[in-house]
């Protein structure tokens, strides 16, 4: 064996010396590939070998039928061990089956989610019905707490947002209307668009981002920590305890927030008209009262609770879908926001068609 430590000159012999470890895996692999068949591997010069080195030898023996000589007992043992661990392991996750199949899967997922949402809608109606028939089960404190979280704490941000929207609508409208010398109609634009559309819609988007996501995250976390299961075993219905208060709070606070948004947007528009267009505040208020019909207010205030209901429903629904691991909480929270904003905009379009067909133009 001692003679093998001398570097071999035979081109069919690969005789590494020193350490045959992961750090030298690259060069070892290249040298092995450069040595032609029939190959003999002489390990007498190896002082240290790890499993990666042993694996490189093993795969060469396996694939090219190489002969191994000069292996010490420890090296031999290691070679046997990696050989024993040589099994066909699936390394990649199962492949998806192409674009068409993926489209189909996506369609099925969307369909199932929608069906699930409708089912959840039914479940929450049952929850409401049982709370109405058994008023003692109504969780007054939970509802009040949700009022605070969803409504009162959102006043500031929704106020600032709507004020700025009023300013922007006024400014953009004025630029266009000035071309016809009709800048006084900016007031009509501000009044009607904020009361009828932007007030409820922007409030809904803000509530979806603030509270819809919070509902999904809270309920999702409770699912993971098995609090929801614990509730069930104690006999408390999670729909009554978690969903009903949140949905109720959203239904009641949304029109209030939407009204607040309309008001601040009109104030924002008024500030712009006063400072930017020189329209006196008194004139502005008078004009607003003249040009905004009561039906616009009703349109806005009818839409708002429906939006609130959809947002809370989607948030709670996605929260309830969380299972297994913490990563899902993040995914479902995102879904809750996306789903609720999407549904709000779809419903807004439906409402637009509906109200114009009943003559509330």
């Amino acid at each position, binding site marked *: 064996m001692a003679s093998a430590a001398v570097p071999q000159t035979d081109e069919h012999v690969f005789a590494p010396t020193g350490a045959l*470890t*992961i*750090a030298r*895996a*690259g060069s070892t*692999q290249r040298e092995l590939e450069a040595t032609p068949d029939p190959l003999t591997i002489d390990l007498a010069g190896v002082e240290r070998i*790890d*499993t*990666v080195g042993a*694996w*490189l030898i093993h*795969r060469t023996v396996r694939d090219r039928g190489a002969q191994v000589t000069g292996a010490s007992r420890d090296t031999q*043992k*290691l070679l046997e*061990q*990696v050989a024993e*661990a*040589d*099994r*066909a*392991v*699936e*390394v*990649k*996750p*199962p492949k998806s089956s192409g674009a068409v199949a993926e489209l189909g899967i996506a369609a099925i997922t969307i369909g199932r989610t929608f069906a699930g949402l409708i089912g959840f809608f039914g479940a929450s109606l049952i929850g409401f019905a049982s709370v109405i028939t058994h008023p003692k089960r109504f969780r007054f404190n939970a509802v009040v707490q949700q009022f605070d979280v969803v409504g009162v704490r959102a006043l500031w941000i929704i106020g600032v947002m709507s004020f700025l929207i009023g300013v922007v609508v006024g400014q953009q409208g004025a630029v266009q209307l000035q071309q016809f010398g009709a800048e006084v109609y900016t007031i009509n634009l501000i009044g009607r668009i904020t009361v009828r559309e932007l007030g409820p819609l922007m409030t809904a988007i803000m509530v979806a981002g603030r509270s819809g996501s919070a509902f999904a995250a809270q309920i999702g976390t409770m699912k993971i920590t098995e609090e929801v299961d614990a509730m069930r075993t104690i006999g408390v219905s999670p729909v009554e305890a978690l969903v009903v208060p949140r949905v109720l709070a959203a239904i009641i606070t949304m029109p209030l927030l939407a009204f607040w948004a309309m008001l601040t947007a009109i104030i924002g528009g008024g500030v712009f008209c006063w400072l930017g267009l020189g329209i006196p505040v008194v004139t502005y208020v008078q004009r607003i009262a003249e040009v905004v019909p009561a039906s616009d207010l009703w349109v806005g205030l009818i839409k708002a609770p429906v939006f609130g209901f959809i947002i809370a429903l989607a948030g709670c629904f996605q929260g309830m879908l969380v299972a*297994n*691991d913490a*990563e899902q909480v993040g995914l479902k929270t995102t879904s809750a926001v996306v789903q609720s904003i999407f549904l709000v905009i779809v419903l807004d379009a439906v409402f637009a068609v509906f109200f114009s067909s009943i003559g509330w133009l």
Partner: protein
Amino acid sequence: MSERRYPFPDSSPILPDDEHPIIRVRNLENRFGDQIVHEHLDLDVRRGEIIGVVGGSGTGKSVLMRSIIGLQKPTAGEIEVLGENMVDRPEDEAKNIRRRWGILFQNGALFSTLTVAENVQVPIREYFPFIKGDLLDEIASYKIVMSGLPENAGGKYPAELSGGMRKRAGLARALALDPELLFLDEPTAGLDPIGAQAFDLLIRGLQQRLDLTVFLITHDLDSLYAICDRVAVLADHEVIAVDTIDRLLQLDHPWIQEYFNGPRGRAAAAA
């Protein structure tokens, strides 16, 4: 080195200097605010042994491990691992020492967005970027098999694995770079007795085959009896004794007596 008195001189946590311990901790002190976790803690770990670390809740077993592997900067003291000083080492030097050990965290700590095989490949890609393609996949494969996972586990995501499989996958990742030293934080916690026993045997087998030194934090008395060469007992802010279980049993210390001679301890000894 200052001579200190240990409560049990025959089971002292310090080895003779000529043994060249693989881990050498001296005068370690860890405190969080007013709370003292370790004070004057000494510990030597012999190369090639499985050392079990036991202690009641809050005695700082995990903090000790985190100090040794550099996740927790000690308030004072010296830590040498593999002959290298670990305290206040610049990041790039520490990185090269770190690759010589593997760590299995309590719940596996697998990267949830990667498959098991990809998890095993992370350390290899990080330190040896020239290993690519088939070879990289093959290395991950045999590590997965060696850790006792089934062949179809490589392509699965951590969320799809059971608790026991997750620990095995974590072990496969810990073994990715052929470490000399393996840290295990309660590897059998949360496993059923059969799974725990299988995991014990796996660790013992790997330790013998791959010449590993294993630093094992555990509460599992069965593991201690089954696989540990020596056991270090943490109490009163320090390692009060390190020895084989038989010899620890002779020591007159209330916690040791209660731990090993309680009903569970006796049941484990009988097994």
